[in-house]
């Protein structure tokens, strides 16, 4: 079990329920692949340092979760399919994380 963190940059025009459904979908993928979401931290709309897809503002969401390594390929495949996700970055935080539950 490894601990990962994904920072997502979402379009500011997304309505809150589409955004919630998108995030629920991603969390569903994590659960389905045998992972567990620890923290879902929404930073809200922030100004971007440079225009992304002609937008100067974006909605940031940070997901922290544990799971096996294979989970990432599946999760990123879903992120790429999803609409309204401009950018994302996945970082491994910790290696051997024992199951806390």
């Amino acid at each position, binding site marked *: 079990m490894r601990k990962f963190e994904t*920072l997502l*940059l979402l379009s500011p025009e997304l309505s809150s329920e589409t955004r919630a459904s998108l995030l629920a979908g991603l969390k569903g993928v994590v659960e389905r692949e045998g992972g567990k979401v620890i923290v879902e931290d929404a930073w809200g709309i922030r100004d*971007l*340092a*440079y*225009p*992304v897809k002609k937008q100067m503002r*974006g909605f*940031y969401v*940070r997901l922290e979760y544990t799971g096996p390594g294979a989970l990432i390929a599946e999760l990123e495949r879903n992120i790429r399919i999803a609409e309204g996700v401009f*950018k994302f*970055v996945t*970082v491994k935080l910790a290696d051997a994380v024992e199951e806390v539950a």
Partner: protein
Amino acid sequence: MAFKKKFTPRKKFCRFCADKALPLDYKRADILRDFVNERGKIIARRITGTCAHHQRKLTVEIKRSRQMALMIYTATHACDVKKKSVL
């Protein structure tokens, strides 16, 4: 007789070694901004004084925060530069 050099540069130290609590993280663009010049370029180690180990981690974190639009790549972006109209 060569007199002693008056200019004694201030003692440079690695901020990440000195202050363990300082998070070296792509999400904290405010801290990373101290290691980038005003045009958005990464400042050399010999000027900021960071040690090799932390400088390597620093460059990775800065590049990640640039990718996530938390920090700028260059001060003047292509779209800001007025395109010369080709007549």
